[in-house]
């Protein structure tokens, strides 16, 4: 199972690297952006040659692939530094945003989903279920605007954008360790968390309903186990597996939607960098971003498989 996953991962890396390269290769002529507006044809030709843009398509691809495996994505056309280090510098900001969002989604979505599943007839549960459909209907970027409008412009309680002060804790630098940083991250993290919260809510809700009608819960009830203990000790562990699986699979889209969130809140993460790079036709940065994203997606998928093996003893015997 793990080997199959690995093979699939390698196929995905190659597929995306080629796709990224083909797509990015056809994306405008970066020489137009690189050379100054009043450059002569000679200057243009030199720029084209310096960056290897005059080589045949496949040659450029294989050069690219060879470099990629040694971790070299070339120099950013815009800042003139290695593309990977440009991205790596922005990565922590995106990571802390994604982690905060998943954290919010988990502590809000899962308990609410379990409760709504346990008491499906309660008016509050019905309201929450209807709200969850509204939640998936609100486009993330507009939700971000709405939150800025309410909390930054009208109420003025939080800043409208930017990353706050960065603190150091146990050698890790993150804005999560300062009050100012937390102040700045709360809006973007909540925005990014919305679709995950709804997803976790719906999964937990459906899982709880299913689990509650099963024999082992009926048996626990017959034994006289309290309602709270049934939910916490018997239902929750059984709904964790789909939650972990879907949560892991959704990580790729969290990263992409982080790009949208970062654009709205002027959050200096790698997603905003990628959107900016598309506008500037900065090919090395875009390809480096794509490869890093696909790598993260694969690693997380593997981690999800391993986590599921640990969570669900039944899978372990089946895997043998």
């Amino acid at each position, binding site marked *: 199972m793990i080997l199959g996953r690995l093979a*699939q991962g390698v*196929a*995905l890396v190659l*597929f*995306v690297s080629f*796709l*990224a390269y083909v*797509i*990015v290769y*056809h*994306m405008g002529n970066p020489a137009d952006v690189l050379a100054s507006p009043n450059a002569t044809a000679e200057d243009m030709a030199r720029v084209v040659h310096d960056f290897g843009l005059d080589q045949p398509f496949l040659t450029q691809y294989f050069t690219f692939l060879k470099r990629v495996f040694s971790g070299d994505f070339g120099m950013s056309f815009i800042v003139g530094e290695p593309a990977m280090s440009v991205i790596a510098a922005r990565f922590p900001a995106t990571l802390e945003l994604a982690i905060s969002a998943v954290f919010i989604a988990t502590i809000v979505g899962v308990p609410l989903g379990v409760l709504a599943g346990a008491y499906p007839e309660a008016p509050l549960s019905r309201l929450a279920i209807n709200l969850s*459909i*509204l939640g*998936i*209907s*609100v*486009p*993330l*970027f*507009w939700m971000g*605007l*709405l939150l*800025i*409008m309410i909390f*930054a*412009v009208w109420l003025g309680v939080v800043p*409208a954008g930017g990353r706050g002060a960065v603190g150091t804790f146990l050698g890790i630098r993150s804005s999560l360790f300062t009050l100012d940083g937390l102040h700045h991250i709360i809006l973007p993290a909540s925005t990014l968390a919305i679709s995950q919260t709804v997803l976790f809510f719906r999964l937990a809700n459906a899982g709880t309903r299913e689990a509650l009608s099963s024999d082992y819960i009926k048996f626990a009830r017959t034994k006289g186990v309290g309602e709270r203990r049934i939910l916490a000790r018997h239902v929750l562990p059984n709904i964790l597996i789909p939650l972990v699986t879907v949560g892991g699979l959704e990580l*790729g*889209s969290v*990263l*992409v*939607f982080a790009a*949208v969130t970062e*654009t*709205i809140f002027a959050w200096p993460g790698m997603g905003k960098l990628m*959107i900016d790079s*598309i*506008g500037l036709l900065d090919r090395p940065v*875009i390809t480096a971003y*794509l490869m890093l*994203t*696909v790598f993260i*997606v694969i690693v997380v*998928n593997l981690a999800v498989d391993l986590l599921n093996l640990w969570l669900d003893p039944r899978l372990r015997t089946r895997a043998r």
Partner: protein
Amino acid sequence: MTAVPAWSSSSGAVKPIRAIIAASILLLIVLAALFAPWIAPQNPYDMNAVSIMDGRLPPGSVGDAGFTFWLGSDDQGRDMLSAILYGLRVSLFVGFAVTLGAAVIGSIMGLTAAMAGGVVDSIIMRFVELQLSFPAMLIALMLVATVGSGLDKIILAIIAVQWAFYARTIRSAAQVEVRKDYIEAARCLSLSRWRIMAVHLLPNCLSVLLVIANILMANAIVIEATMSFLGLGLPISRPSLGRLIANGFDYLLNGAYWISLFPGIVLVVVIYCINIIGDDLRRFLNPRGL
């Protein structure tokens, strides 16, 4: 014989009141968009009708043009109500066109995979899985960044990322049907593959197709809006709802909330109605595997 979808769910009859209300609202919105040239106070594409002197008027004010800007105006002096009605046409058209294109391509691929099995099935499904393991929005962004923006290119890019969802769902539904006796009978009558697929297999996968098409149509409208918001979608000359919202973003911090707020509300109402209908459809049709 084939299983006729029952208009009730396993847990007692569901009354489709919610879906009927949602469908009525959606119908009203679609009609308003269709008849926009006749009901909009202003033609927002006609630069002669738009006066920059009317720029950024708050909702309810009367401008130079002599009519009331019920939803305010944008920075160019365009009436927001008119811009929203015209923007709806673009957003809804993208939704319909993408759904039609992706559903046709995805169904053909899914049905072919289920009918043929073996190597054909493996090749198609490997490709589908590969594509689905990478975020759809990212692929669409890259495609549009490559081929450039424009209505046709946006639609093609979203079709290119959505067909795989249809293919996977239709294939899993068709795989169940293919093993049934009526398909066996049709094969024994040596009907052509296309005929079996179109006349016998497809109608029995229709409930699944309907449900997923609903979800994905809402999704297509959101993808287009998001790309337009990021500036990688449609140009400002013929703005969709997403582009209108993006346009208002620049003025949001100055307090001109209406430019972003109202197009967004209309967008959310459209998506919410589609999702409500989809949610109830799923309960009524109750297809397996969804």
